[in-house]
């Protein structure tokens, strides 16, 4: 692939803290390599801001390998930028052209309040997991791997659902700020496996209740979440959650 450098204009959301109103700041960045990642481009800009004695732009990141779910920028109107099934850290500057203007915003949802600049508080996801996104297992020796037979197709579907990294792009993309793709991935993952069966009904009811409490919206099946998900989680999981919820609500006390 041909390597080139580019000059870009960045319009970045700056907000001092949760109470600040916030506004867009425009930055010019030059000599950006097409092989840099989007976050490396921000590192270059931040080093310059630090040299100039200014406050660097706060943004979330951790593994920079596309597997941890920490990076969270809303780039030119799409979570994680223009590429499909891709995280911001794995977005490379060759996705852009010399002279482009790129608008970068934080995830927008009342359930994800801005902490600073592009960093949002996603602990609401942690509380949803705490409400039921787990299985209870007695401690002791590990059970033999073959003791619980799992149908191959179900194992594959559970694995595909488990690929969710909990980044929150689905919430950011959804017009209703609904977290249902995330919640459904977790519910489907465990409902498909025998280990998840004992807590199957309480899990879905409690996780949905916590999701509502956190202030996420309802799903209206527009498909925007699926289109933006870096891990390719499908909205079939949401339909599966709906079924799980209906069965649980009709058959539990």
């Amino acid at each position, binding site marked *: 692939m041909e390597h080139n450098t580019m000059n870009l204009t960045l319009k970045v959301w700056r907000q001092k803290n949760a109470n600040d109103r916030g506004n867009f700041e425009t930055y010019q960045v030059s000599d950006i390599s097409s092989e840099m990642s989007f976050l490396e481009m921000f590192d270059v800009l931040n080093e310059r801001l630090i040299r100039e004695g200014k406050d660097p732009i706060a943004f979330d990141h951790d593994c920079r390998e596309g597997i941890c779910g920490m990076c969270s920028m809303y780039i030119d109107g799409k979570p994680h930028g223009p590429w499909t099934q891709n995280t911001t850290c794995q977005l490379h500057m060759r996705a852009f052209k010399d002279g482009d203007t790129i608008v970068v915003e934080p995830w927008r949802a009342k359930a994800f309040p801005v902490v600073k600049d592009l960093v949002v508080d996603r602990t609401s996801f942690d509380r949803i997991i705490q409400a039921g996104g787990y299985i209870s297992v007695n401690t002791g020796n590990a059970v033999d791997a073959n003791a619980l037979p799992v149908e191959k197709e179900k194992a594959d579907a559970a694995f595909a659902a488990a690929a969710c990294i909990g980044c929150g792009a689905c919430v950011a993309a959804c*017009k209703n700020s*609904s977290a249902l793709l995330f919640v459904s991935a977790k519910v489907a993952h465990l409902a498909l496996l025998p280990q998840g069966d004992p807590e199957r009904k309480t899990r879905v009811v409690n996780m949905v209740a916590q999701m509502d409490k956190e202030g*996420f919206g309802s799903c209206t*099946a527009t498909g925007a979440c699926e289109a*933006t998900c870096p891990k390719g989680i499908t909205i079939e999981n*949401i*339909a599966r959650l709906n079924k799980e*919820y209906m069965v649980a609500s009709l058959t539990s006390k």
Partner: protein
Amino acid sequence: MTLKQIFTSAVGRKLTMGLSGIFLILFLIVHVGLNACIWANDGGEMFNRAAHFMGATVVMRILEVGLFVFIFIHIIQGLMLEVSNRSKRGTAYAVSYGNRGSKWYSRSMGLLGTIILLFLVIHWIDFWIPSRFTGVEDVTLSDGKTVHNLYALMQNRFEVTWIVVVYILGCISLAYHLAHGFQSAFRSLGVYNKKYNVMLTNFGYAFAIIVSLAFIMMPVSMYFHWLS
């Protein structure tokens, strides 16, 4: 799990929307089929007979009450859902995701539903209220039976250009509302099989187009006097 949760939880709301939506879809099949009798080209005799049947028995009256219950559940729940969903974002995005991730009509169900509701109010004033309460002039059928002449009422209403235009706009909104609503209703009820979802989506498109087009052709064929 309480009854309240079924109506107020994010998933329960969708269940009630889906169930009431499917009931309304079933009603549309009856409505469009019955109204298609105007094309029998017999001066409205078959249509008037069918329309009379729809109000003649106690079973139909009970179904009519049920229909209104489902219509109002769908409207009230839909409006509440729209208001609630719109309040979840907080600060709006500067650049919208727009049509890159979803279709415009899937994001506009609240707007399309509101247009359909406004159309329905006009529709009720035009036909339902006269036939139930304020009275419609009678006509004697070939077998001597006297029934409401709803066919003449249709001919009369669909002489007016603005009413025909409103009906066409209402039916176009219905087409887009159904194009998303049909498949979404089944997803809300938990159909997660990918093959069935593709089938339901395509069937939903066909249903939306055929039903809405048939409804549109009714005022149009009367306005242009295509019927004898």
